[in-house]
């Protein structure tokens, strides 16, 4: 039933490791996003895909690599994790167009030890 689902919900790992977060939406949307929310609750967009094509690629370290195998999925792979990567990562989806609201997953809380 869940519209936008992310896995895992929690991710605790060591510095230097590589990890992935998966996102799936069942709303039939054609645009998907990754956001990073820091400890002060500030939200920053990282990437956006429309119909599997990258359309927004913010200033993010190239250790972060998104991948969209199809319209309903958007994954985020992170190489060589650093302490500063600790945050909550949100996936969202919407229909195309800025007037369309975004639907968010419940987030993945990443903690780097």
């Amino acid at each position, binding site marked *: 039933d869940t519209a*936008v689902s992310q896995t895992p919900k929690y991710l605790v790992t060591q510095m230097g490791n590589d990890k992935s977060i998966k996102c799936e939406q069942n709303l039939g949307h054609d645009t998907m996003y990754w956001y990073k929310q820091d400890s*002060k*609750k*500030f*939200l920053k*967009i990282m990437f*956006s895909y*429309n119909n599997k094509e990258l*359309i*927004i690629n913010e200033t993010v370290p190239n250790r972060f690599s998104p991948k969209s195998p199809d319209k309903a999925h958007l994954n985020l792979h992170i190489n060589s994790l650093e302490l500063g990567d600790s945050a909550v990562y*949100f996936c*969202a989806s919407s229909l*195309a*167009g*800025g*007037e369309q*609201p*975004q*639907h*968010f*997953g*419940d*987030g993945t809380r990443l903690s780097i030890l």
Partner: protein
Amino acid sequence: AQSVTQLDSHVSVSEGTPVLLRCNYSSSYSPSLFWYVQHPNKGLQLLLKYTSAATLVKGINGFEAEFKKSETSFHLTKPSAHMSDAAEYFCVVSPSHAGKSTFGDGTTLTVKP
């Protein structure tokens, strides 16, 4: 170019009293404007949106917002706060065409019994 400023980082009200969360925006075109709410350990949920129709927009849970072009504001109000309204609130401005949304820094609403 677009930007959004949430004028209060924290707002505290007593249960049963009115809520006012302030948001100013700037945009070089006619924008779409949104308010989202984030409860603890949850993703963002759409409260309401303005997309150039009626300037007074009604949302879920008794919230409403008024678009004032002359003041470039989109303040969120609710006549009577409930304990369950305690959360983080984000004001968002988007271009009506395809493009990147800009999120405000958020306002933490505390509701005292």
